């Protein structure tokens, strides 16, 4: 009898202490399910991350409420951004972003740009490789460059005036190539399939999209990242385009933003939650397998990073004539 009573009171005491510390550490917590806005369709890259994160939050019990992924499709992210932009001050909405987060406001006339949103955290940087078919005569970046100086190469990528075309344009500008004939496709997997089927001559697919055909059908010539992927088993020898003498480095942002003027406590909570997700072995394993660079930033560091990221896009897109004021006259 005595021991039983003791155990019960001990349990109460422990849970009380636990509860106290919990509520002290986390001054603010969401009280209802969080809307996790995805600025792309189901099955796309951003969608994959959002569902992975929301699943991991559930599986490891990282938050008191579920994160509900909601796709807002349309206008290369403009519809999602507009929705979140309209939720000024809301503390139960966050958005997972990709490059179109900075590119779409540059290319389209929208009443907002990246600055309007509350930066929460950066989670990873997605990589781009230069791929050709295994039967292609091009064995190095130099081979591709010399061919592209002769004629316009047929290349493909995901979407129009988005990151894939940006990289090709960047490449074209820095290496002085003839303009590529760029074919837009709806998804990265389709781009890779068209390269394997020899319908196009080169692509800048993400590693995860090229891997199903590597090394049986596709050849990776270089990475557009700043540094080599020393942590990857398959690609640690892959040169960077930069070390080959073309001043290009580009990676895709996988980050989380909140609505304009999100309260500071909420911002802290989500940044902390994302750090917990980031540190999970499941998440790191996912990044490693798909050759992504893990990079966590939050608060002002992240804001500064986005500013620099935006500047690069403005520069390349202006030069390519994609920014809204210049392209009214110049369409392709």
């Amino acid at each position, binding site marked *: 009898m005595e021991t039983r009573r003791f155990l019960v009171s001990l349990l109460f005491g422990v849970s009380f202490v636990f509860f106290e510390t919990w509520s002290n550490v986390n001054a603010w917590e969401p009280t209802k399910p969080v809307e996790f806005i995805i600025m792309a369709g189901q099955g*796309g890259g951003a969608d994959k991350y959002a*569902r992975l994160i929301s*699943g991991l939050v559930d599986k490891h019990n990282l938050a008191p409420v579920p994160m509900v992924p909601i796709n807002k499709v349309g*206008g290369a992210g403009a519809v999602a951004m507009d929705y979140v932009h309209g939720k000024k001050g809301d503390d139960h909405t966050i958005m997972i972003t990709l490059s179109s987060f900075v590119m779409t406001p540059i290319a389209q006339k929208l009443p907002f740009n990246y600055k309007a949103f509350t930066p929460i955290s950066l989670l990873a940087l997605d990589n781009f490789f230069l791929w050709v078919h295994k039967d292609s005569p091009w064995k190095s970046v130099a081979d591709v460059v010399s061919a592209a100086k002769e004629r316009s190469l*047929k290349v493909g990528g995901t979407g129009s005036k988005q990151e894939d075309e940006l990289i090709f344009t960047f490449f074209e500008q820095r290496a002085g190539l003839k303009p590529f004939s760029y074919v837009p496709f709806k998804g990265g997997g389709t781009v890779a399939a068209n390269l394997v089927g020899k319908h196009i001559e080169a692509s800048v697919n993400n590693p995860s999209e090229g891997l*199903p055909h590597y090394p049986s059908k596709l050849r990776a010539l270089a990475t557009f990242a700043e540094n080599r992927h020393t942590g990857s088993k398959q690609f640690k020898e892959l040169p960077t385009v930069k070390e080959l003498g073309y001043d290009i480095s580009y990676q895709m942002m996988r980050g989380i933003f909140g609505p304009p003027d999100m309260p500071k406590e909420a911002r802290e909570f989500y940044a902390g939650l994302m750090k917990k997700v980031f540190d999970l072995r499941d998440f790191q394993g996912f990044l490693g397998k798909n050759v992504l660079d893990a990079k966590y930033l939050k608060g002002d560091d992240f804001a500064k990073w986005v500013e620099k990221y935006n500047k690069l896009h403005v520069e390349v897109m202006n030069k390519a004539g994609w920014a809204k004021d210049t392209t009214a006259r110049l369409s392709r």
Partner: protein
Amino acid sequence: MESLANLAYGFDLAFSPYNLFVAGIGVLFGVIIGILPGLGGTSGVAILLPLTFVMPPSSAIVFLSCIYWGALFGGAITSILFNIPGEPWSVATMFDGHPMATSGRAGQALGSAFVPGFFSALIAVLLFTFFAPPLADFALRFGPPENFAVLLLAFSTFTGLGGGSPAKAFAVTAIGFMLATVGLDFVTGRPRLTFGSITMLSGFSFITVSIGLFGIGEILYSAEETLEIKGVRARVGLKDFTVVLQTIWRNIASFFTGTLLGFWIGIMPGTGATPASFLSYGLAKKLSRHPEKFGTGIPEGVMATETAAHAAGIGALLPMITLGIPGSPTAAVILGGLYIWGLLPGPQLFTEQKEFVWGLIASMYIGNAMGVLLCLFLVPFFAAIMRIPSPILTPIIVLLSLIGAYAVNNSTFDIWLVLIFGLIGYVFKKLNYPLAPLVVALVLGDITEEVLRQSLILSNGSISIFFTRPIAAFFVAIAVTLFFLPALARFWRWIEGKSLLPAKG
């Protein structure tokens, strides 16, 4: 046969109590998701994807694919009973399914969807089991020009769809194409016909449009037509089942065309079950001995759509597994799951992850069998819904339509769109404008424009690309023949008539 041994191994896995349980739950969820309009298999799989994190990958894939099979069955139910597409691929099921249901043959209509759907899925799974890698290799030869040629074929089968005045059909087709262009232009990345509105950038989802045109439009029309309660008597018996089997037997050619066509279009990346269902319906009508009966409520019409849709569902998973390319939007979400579970798609899956691949294939057999049994078992219940007096049933349908419209893109604007298109549907019906060509133009217009423009970029603007590539040229030739078939037939009759004349004189 190595495949057989592997398949036996797969069945061994799939028949474990846990996997059977997961498969059953998946099919049940799928059927429910399929019945709810707007909430498609794609969203359903996406929503339930996080649930799979606690399962081993081989059970997770069984669960997700079984949702897909369930949704394939469930989608037909809403189309047939309420004239609202439960799923994108069951739009064409409405054309004949709903008239059947309103004339008291709901059970037969449902049976004509489920039974042929199951058999076609079975054939597709068999093809999948034994020929997956070579089929995937062949699929890679289909680039944008080949895809365009196939879609051209789809259009050629749809000339004269809906009957009535050709001028009216032409007008609604043009409206469909116009609606398809709204939104961000895919090739230039510029907005088209959005009038500066951000909401319009998403364009018109054809599910929203068809829920409005068919669902709400039909309700308005029938509300005006009859004030008395219709209360269709729907008796369901074993007789219906034999009618269904007879339909398959009598239209065995159409059944196999639908199945093979659906399977192949499913494999081709980026198209999926929806265009397959339209193409199969169009082709069945074109090749039928009595094309004029299509759209009035005949089981062949339902069968043609559903065989293609079910086979395409299976086909769509083939390039996903072997090449990492989703054959349909739903497959794209399942592919996302693969990455999340830590698997990389590709040919190596067949050697490195035998458990996963063959478990999946075995679950295709089991899931489809469960789906058809569940649905057939429920047919009397579903058919009984048609006996509910319309003053009670109609508000429920309206409610379902509006929820469905919202679910497509989580946008309240779509609710307004459904109501507006409902009015348009009513006016069109009053004025005898056919609705089907509009929806077909809207759903196929988008993809067709995409592949056409991709092809033209590849060829620097020359249309010769469609004639110089053998596969494309083959399909273009069939399409052109079908296009001119009515004119040719008339010409032939005219020649015959002429040659008879001298004999007379």
